Structures are given as structure tokens and as C-alpha cells.
């Protein structure tokens, strides 16, 4: 995709579809790497499904539960000399601690590195579209950090839905402000 933030949106939609109550989106940067880790507590995948998620053909020919999201993210990571790792615990074997972790490593200085793009839009879009699930967003670069936890917002808002216009606007402004000092 043209921006990694669109890949993040795509992968996180999978988490929500898998019934995740909480999805953690973490971006951590060093001088030459960028790592995106998306961790959810959704239903997880069986080993059988897990083996096929990076096979684009398989996914397009079945119910398209996973879609092209993983194959494309993997390609984009590998294009920079990085890699993609997925681990998952399916609800049938792990009734109490199921979920999926997708971790993509990129080398930022590689000429084929896809820019991160507009993460603020990605996060606000996710919250707006799924106001009843929680998201924890963290972006770390050296000593700087941007973060947003919808669980904290929910506590303060006392029942006001997260997709209320004013709340979404506030989240957007808050993230933008945090990025100004990033």
C-alpha cells in the first residue's frame, strides 16, 4: 500500500473482526528500523489457518477471512530487508489467553521503504468505526512517545460514546499535538 498506516488499518480490522476487545498498536523506531506490532485478544487462529495466512492465493480462494493484508505487509517488510512474524493462540486451545500478534520489521533507510503516512487518521478511523472496542496506540522513537488508550478515555467520558463527533475531534487534535513534540 502507499502508506504503512493503511496496512495498520487493514491488519487491525482483522483483529476487530476476530472479536478483539482490546487491540494494541505499537510502532517503535530506532535510527534505522521501524517495527509495527499489532497485538489483539481476539479469537486467534488455529495452526492450520496460521500456516495459510501469508499464502495470498489460498486466502483469495476461500472465504477471504484474512484477505491480502498479511501478504502485502509481509512483502513491504521484506522489500526493505525486514520480515514479518505472526503468532496466534486459538480460543479452542487457549480459552483464557487467546489472540494474535503480528510483528513487521522494516529497515527505514532502504530505498523501497514505504512511508508510515497518516497514523492519526488511521487511529481516529479505527475508533470511529469501532467505538465499542478498545485500542491502545503507542509510537516510540528514541526518548519520545505518543500514546492513546481508549480505556482511559472511556473512564473519563462516563458513557459518552467514543464515536461522538466532539470526542473523535478531541482524539485527533490530541494526537496531532503529541506529534508536534515528537
Amino acid at each position, binding site marked *: 500500500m*502507499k502508506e504503512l498506516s493503511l496496512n495498520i488499518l487493514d491488519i487491525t480490522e482483522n483483529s476487530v473482526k476476530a472479536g478483539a476487545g482490546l487491540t494494541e498498536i505499537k510502532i517503535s523506531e530506532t535510527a534505522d528500523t521501524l517495527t509495527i506490532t499489532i497485538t489483539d485478544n481476539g479469537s486467534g487462529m488455529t495452526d492450520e489457518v496460521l500456516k495459510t495466512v501469508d499464502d495470498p*492465493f489460498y486466502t483469495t*480462494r476461500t472465504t477471504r477471512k484474512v484477505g491480502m493484508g498479511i501478504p502485502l505487509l509481509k512483502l513491504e517488510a521484506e522489500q526493505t530487508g525486514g520480515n514479518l512474524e505472526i503468532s496466534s493462540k486459538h480460543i479452542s486451545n487457549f480459552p483464557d489467553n487467546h489472540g494474535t500478534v503480528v510483528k513487521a520489521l522494516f529497515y527505514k533507510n532502504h530505498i523501497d521503504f514505504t512511508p508510515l503516512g497518516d497514523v492519526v487518521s488511521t487511529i481516529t478511523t479505527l475508533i470511529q468505526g469501532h467505538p465499542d472496542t478498545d485500542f491502545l496506540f503507542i509510537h516510540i522513537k528514541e526518548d519520545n512517545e505518543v500514546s492513546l488508550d481508549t480505556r482511559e478515555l472511556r473512564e473519563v467520558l462516563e458513557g459518552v460514546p467514543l464515536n461522538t463527533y466532539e470526542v473523535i475531534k478531541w482524539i485527533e487534535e490530541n494526537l496531532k499535538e503529541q506529534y508536534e513534540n515528537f
Partner: protein
Amino acid sequence: MTVKELANTELFSAVAMPHGEREINGVYIGDLLSWVMGRAEADNAWITIMSNNNILAVAALADTSCIILAEGVSLEDSIVKTAEEKGINILKSEKNAYEISVALSSML
């Protein structure tokens, strides 16, 4: 023009041709797979320099009549085998995307 007819011209050679009878009705050029996926039209010949197995899924989703690998790009044997199995036509050419499309514009 069919994929098979195109494969028989001087400029192209077949890499995988399970459905040589498919008609080519136009051309799309692109290497950013997510972009191509939403924009290439059914029955287009799709010119690319990408050579990973994801191109097969993109061609299947967009229902292109064939993939044309430009600039002498080659595929791993396993990808060619999958293409045969899944009914994806693939041709290749030593020319670049511009030269290929110029040639195609007078043929189609």
C-alpha cells in the same frame, strides 16, 4: 487478440499459459500490488516487474487476462507451478513497460 496469439509474437514468450484462449481488451501497468488490485480491469494484460507469489492473487482478484513480466524478470519455479494450477496466464518480455505498451497499442 488472445493471450496465445500474443505469446506467439516476437516480443513475448509464455511462462505459464493455462488459458491461452483468453482475450486481451486493454493494458494496465503497475507494481504497487494494492494499487493494481483495485484498478486493473478484467481482461487487461497487466505489465509488472514484480515477481513474488502475490502477483498471482492480484491477477486472480482483478481477473486480468495475463500478467506480462517486463525487463526479463523471471519467476521461481514454484510460482510458475502455482500459476498453472490456478489458471493464471503469464508472459514475459525483455522490453520495458513503455516499449511493451507501445507494441501492444498497435496489436490490440
